[in-house]
């Protein structure tokens, strides 16, 4: 399947849900007019990232009426946004909502909440417990949120479950200005990971990272689409941008003909070895 994906590389206002929602509708509308069939926003795009005690104030239930306008717009294109989701039992998740065909099609709750260095997500959020590609009218989409993608097992599970594209919503703050390539160290690391995963899992990787500053932290953008051959086919800089990139069904097919990694993958062997590892670790005194 061939279609255009729009990377909505935005700069959310921290803790201002209403303002951000209006901006989403405006940007998504623009993407649709440019013939995008999928619009991807960054992690926590409706709220901003460094929320701390604001988390409960900006939380939404998945059926919140304030999301109705986004849902309606999804009749014309699928839309992935980042939000704080409140569950029935009042846990708060760092979630991605995928709207399609006029309603909420899927929710991915971030599994890996970084809680080291400058991060404190584990303090504020509950962790998701699964990776499950969504059967969309645009193929099988594996949703990931930022740190999820640094754990290869996340993408591996999407790969086993036949994802065609990985959609990664990110709010990655830049660190490291001692390199020589003119970009922050974080960007270099991400680019390596994105290209490697596109190749290793023969998928399109759609990465949408936010921009702007929050409390002095710089979000470096660099949103991109990587083809299953590991080639960057669309690329944003570090400002607010709407970038269109191609999802190329032919390329996906050819990559899997040339490198049938999915066909040859030994999931049962992996499972067996993981079980054996866990058993051995359990039985080995530390």
């Amino acid at each position, binding site marked *: 399947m061939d279609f255009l994906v729009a990377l909505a590389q935005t700069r959310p*206002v*921290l*803790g*201002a849900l209403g303002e951000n929602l209006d901006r989403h509708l405006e940007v998504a509308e623009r993407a649709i007019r440019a013939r995008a069939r999928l619009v991807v926003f960054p992690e926590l795009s409706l709220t901003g990232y*460094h*929320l*701390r*005690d*604001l988390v409960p104030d900006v939380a939404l239930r998945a059926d919140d009426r304030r999301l109705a306008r986004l849902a309606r717009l999804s009749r014309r294109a699928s839309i992935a946004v980042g939000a704080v989701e409140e569950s029935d039992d009042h846990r708060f998740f760092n979630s991605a909502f995928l709207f399609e065909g006029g309603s909420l099609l899927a929710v991915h709750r971030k599994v890996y909440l970084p809680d080291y260095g400058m991060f404190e997500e584990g303090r504020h959020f509950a962790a998701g417990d699964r990776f499950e590609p969504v059967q969309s009218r645009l193929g099988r989409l594996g949703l990931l949120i930022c740190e999820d993608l640094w754990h290869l097992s996340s993408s591996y599970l999407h790969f086993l479950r036949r994802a065609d594209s990985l959609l990664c919503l990110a709010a990655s703050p*830049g660190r490291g*200005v*001692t*390199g*020589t*390539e*003119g*970009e*922050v160290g974080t960007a270099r690391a991400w680019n390596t990971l994105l290209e490697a995963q596109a190749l290793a899992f023969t998928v399109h990787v759609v990465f949408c990272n936010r921009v*702007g*500053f*929050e*409390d*002095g932290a*710089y979000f470096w953008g660099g949103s991109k689409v990587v083809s299953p051959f590991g080639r960057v086919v669309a690329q944003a800089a570090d400002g607010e941008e709407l970038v269109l990139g191609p999802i190329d069904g032919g390329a996906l097919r050819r990559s899997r003909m040339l490198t049938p990694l999915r066909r040859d993958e030994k999931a049962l062997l992996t499972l067996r070895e993981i079980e054996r590892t866990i058993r051995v670790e359990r039985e080995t005194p530390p």
Partner: protein
Amino acid sequence: MRLPLDAPLATRLLSLFLREEAGKFGFRRAVLGLSGGVDSAVTAALAALAFGGRRVLAVLLPYRQSSPESLLLARDLVGRLRLRSVEIDITPMADGYLRGVRGADRVRRGNVLARCRMTVLYDLSAAWRGLVLGTSDKSELLLGYTTLHGDSASALNPIGDLYKTQVLALGAHLGVPEAILRRPPSPDLWPGQSAERELGFSYERVDALLHALVDRRYAEAECVAAGFPRGLVRSVAGRIRANQFKRMPSLVPKLSNRTLHWDFRYPRDWGR
């Protein structure tokens, strides 16, 4: 070993930082004290890129004992960067207080000067509607080589995550005159004051050590094993610990369930 720096990248990030973080609070102008040293020169150059020179108010704040060269270099930079500027002699202000004080050593007197300057900058901030920019680099902040509520006071401090030697490299990239880059670092709080003599080590040497201790999380023993003199490691690690209070807001005793800083935790850019 010189700490590396991608100077063009740092320049872009820091000018973006200034424009965006000031803009969130409705500010399009900045105020800073220009001393004739490298830290304030680099901050001024970044501010000129971020806001435009005419939107940066450089405040020259000499005291009767300040080095005349400082004032000349600061004036020269104002012209080069096309900044707005004002000169305010803080002698009457500082001496008005110090004349009545007995037995103040030069450190106390120096701190009074730094706090007089802060008072002027914050007053002009309100008058000119510009944010006060800090000019303390990471070396100074870690070593506590600042005056609390003096030069350490600011709204935005663009160079606070760059070591002194990196600020020098950035200065060279930004076209800060050699005369400023080559000057021995000094707060110029008393005649002949030298930062490196006072601290007891050169910035080049201490920056590499700070980078190992802070950024790369080397233990003190590992720094010694890597070739840093034991005495230097002990003194620098001690300074970092001893000056932690200068980098923190004042302590509030915890009485309630929700106490400022402990569990009342909102971002500074709240709603912006």
